[in-house]
């Protein structure tokens, strides 16, 4: 028995180290906030385009935030707490849009809906219209971008909220009903607030991804704050100004996240009852059942079925000439990277989230918010942010090696798979962390105490109590990271080893040469490869509901 300082815990130390590693690139971006920039770039941007970019970003956030929250929560609520024809199918199918990269979705919808696309051409042919004779909504606008993002990002909210609803404490719902609240009002007064950590996490992830996105908004020419960052960097050649803008974005996101945390006050979200039984879903009939099916089918149609069909058609008619053995290699590469990253990410997220739970202090929680910020930074910026420390370390290693063995081994890490996975982790740890944290908040603190009083250390408590209790969320987190890595581009492009292509880079190569139709094969492959674990895991997740 050793007296140990109250603040010290082995797990917390591990957590802090991991957090520092993961936070380093983000911090190196953030630090630029305090470096004096080139005033010319600043004044130019702020006088010309920045106000519009900021306005666009805010509008985009508002639209996407509302959209994913409504669609995600509604579908989660319907599938988790009701029974209607097709529910079991929708349960896992609603996750599918996750596999479609937003930029691919943007290409596909544009191709489908633009003036020269099949829909408008058919309309013109049918009615003999010419240009200007009729009005047709333009998808490549801000509302269009919102629609795209909502379609591919709502699964974040869906998955997290659903897990929360499934983990719901039936006891608390019953209490609400004895107090005169019908299922509908009980949903708003109890289920929804109790799912708040999960919903907030889902919406936050969707918003961070929206803010960091460049491909979609660039293609739609909806210029956002990220456009501003890229403009400062690429067009105006001012890296410092770009980093400062990125840091501002970070500060904004951090502020939002913290504000949300603070607004929770001392409220808790854990289960207060010990006798929760899986409630049989309320059975919907007639018009209600029809409405439920419709509500679930629409996002699935728009977010997956239609784009997948369009991609399939493109791939079949004018797909990649190189389809074949090469795709096996690409798929394998993508799958391995995504799989390894997902496993590492979930593990690290679990450690970090649990560390913060243990320390109860603001320090660890704050650290975790910082770690999670990588997701809000545009991919190219974070890729460079990762390059800097990795190459530094590499130089140091090379120097040591040279000092010991007398020759320069070159760079050991940069351009290696490990560094690439590190970059992914920096970028996507937020996804796993938010997911795990939101679910951890639902576990009664007395679980921890009970395990410790039975002689389990922190690590073992995590392994034997929390991990099984979090099973659904851990799978969800792994799934989300997996799919995100499958789709990731900027870091993959710049950090990958020689001659190492993935499905995403393949799609990129073709798309950037404006061979969209050919890129469809790779895009479809991303969807298909992502689909496998998606279907497998989402079944597991539904099965992991606990009593």
């Amino acid at each position, binding site marked *: 028995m050793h007296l140990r300082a109250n603040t010290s815990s082995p797990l917390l130390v591990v957590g802090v180290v991991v957090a520092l590693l993961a936070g380093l690139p983000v911090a190196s971006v953030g630090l630029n906030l305090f470096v004096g920039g080139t005033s010319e770039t600043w004044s130019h941007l702020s006088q010309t*385009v920045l106000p519009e970019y900021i306005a666009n970003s805010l509008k985009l956030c508002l639209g996407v935030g509302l959209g994913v929250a409504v669609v995600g929560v509604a579908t989660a609520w319907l599938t988790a707490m009701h029974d209607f024809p097709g529910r079991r199918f929708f349960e896992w199918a609603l996750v599918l849009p996750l596999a479609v990269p937003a930029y691919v979705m943007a290409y596909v919808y544009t191709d489908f809906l633009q003036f020269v696309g099949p829909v408008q051409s058919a309309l013109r042919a049918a009615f003999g219209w010419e240009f200007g004779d009729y009005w047709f909504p333009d998808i*490549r606008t801000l509302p269009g971008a919102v629609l795209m993002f909502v379609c591919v990002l709502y699964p974040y909210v869906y998955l997290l909220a659903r897990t929360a609803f499934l983990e719901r404490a039936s006891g608390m719902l019953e209490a609400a009903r004895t107090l005169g609240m019908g299922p509908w009002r009980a949903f708003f007064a109890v289920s929804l607030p109790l799912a708040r950590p999960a919903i907030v996490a889902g919406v936050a992830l969707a918003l961070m991804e929206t803010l960091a996105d460049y491909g979609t908004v660039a293609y739609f020419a909806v210029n956002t704050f990220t456009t501003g960052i890229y403009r400062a960097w690429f067009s105006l050649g001012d890296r410092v100004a770009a980093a400062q803008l990125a840091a501002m974005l970070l500060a904004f996101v951090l502020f939002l996240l913290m504000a949300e945390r603070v607004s929770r006050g001392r409220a808790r979200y854990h289960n207060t009852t010990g006798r929760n039984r899986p409630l049989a879903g309320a059975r919907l009939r007639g018009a209600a059942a029809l409405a439920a099916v419709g509500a679930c089918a629409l996002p699935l149609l728009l977010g997956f079925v239609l784009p997948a069909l369009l991609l399939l058609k493109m791939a079949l008619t004018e797909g990649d000439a190189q389809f074949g053995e090469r795709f096996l290699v690409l798929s394998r590469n993508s799958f391995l990277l995504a799989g390894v990253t997902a496993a590492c990410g979930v593990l690290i997220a679990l450690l970090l989230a649990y560390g913060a739970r243990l320390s109860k202090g603001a320090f660890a929680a704050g650290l975790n918010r910082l770690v999670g910020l990588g997701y809000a930074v545009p991919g190219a910026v974070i890729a460079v942010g990762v390059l800097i420390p990795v190459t530094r370390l590499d130089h140091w290693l090379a120097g040591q090696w040279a000092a010991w063995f007398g020759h320069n081994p070159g760079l050991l890490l940069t351009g290696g798979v490990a560094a690439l996975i590190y970059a992914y982790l920096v970028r996507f740890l937020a996804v796993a962390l938010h997911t795990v944290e939101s679910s951890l908040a639902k576990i009664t603190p007395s679980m921890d105490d009970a395990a410790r009083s039975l002689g389990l250390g922190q690590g073992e408590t995590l392994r034997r109590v929390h991990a099984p209790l979090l099973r659904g969320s851990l799978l969800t987190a792994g799934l989300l990271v997996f799919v995100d890595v499958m789709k990731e581009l900027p870091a993959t492009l710049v950090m990958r080893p*020689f*001659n190492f292509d993935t499905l995403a880079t393949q799609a990129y190569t073709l798309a950037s040469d*404006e061979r969209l139709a050919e890129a469809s094969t790779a895009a479809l492959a991303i969807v298909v490869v992502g689909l496998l674990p998606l279907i497998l895991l989402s079944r597991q997740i539904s099965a992991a509901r606990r009593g």
Partner: protein
Amino acid sequence: QEKVLNLYSARHYQTDEALYADFTKQTGIKINRIEGKEDELLERIRNEGANSPADVLLTVDASRLAKARELGLFAPLSSPVLEKRIPAHLRTAEWASFSTRARVIVYNKARVQASDVQNYADLADPKLKGKFCSRSGSHPYNLSLLASVIAHEGEAKAEALARGMVANFARAPKGGDTDQIKAVAAGECGVAISNSYYVARLMRSTKPEDQKTMEQVGVVWPNQATTGTHINVSGGGVLKHAPNKEAAIKFLEYLASDSAQRYFADGNNEWPVVASVKVDNPALSKLGKFKADQLPVNSLAMYQVKAQMIFDRAGFK
């Protein structure tokens, strides 16, 4: 030890693989390559510093080459072969161009007269109000075009041009060059600008809808009477810390060889930089000879930031 060449390339043409394979076959040097975006690749090379494995950097934009030079990433390039084969305005002491692409005007034959769009300046003419389409103003292709205008005519003229174009927009800038061509053909736009190889690719396409597209549009070589049509280049140089400098020079020289040059033309519809090379590309032949801007490509980089600022001020999104 196996001879290798480490290539960092921003060329995004899948068909380039045949080119690299040909090089390996000829020289026995294996090519390791990563493809990415110019600016990120520059960051990677910069950070890798003295230990960088990169031998050659290839880009598709002159200003990025200039930037790499500015950052001191290139080694001096001295190759008699390159000096002999590549025209002086298409190379510098550190890097050389291996192919060019022209920025041409594409118009809808039914909606616009060819005579009204003979120069880039015409795109600002109020006659084209509501007819002009373009990709984003921040795209390097447009930036380098405006940079060339600044180089030739000064900032004021350039800004007037940009503002005129904005006033003529049929729609907010969006999509790529191919999108613009298709929109012109469909009548949504009257006129647009595009890189020549996209036009050529559509001309060579066997797909009926592409052929129909090209039936609707005409292509103009702008500024034939004045400075010549704006061109940008794809080029590269040997990096300062290249571990395989010899192979790197060999590779660049290979890119200037007849077979490689023909490959750029045939495979990717670009114009070779070596005048003597015979091109066997029906689309390029059909587009015919044109007077290219002789501006040293170097200066495109000089004005790129200015060009972006002008676009921003003019509201060319």
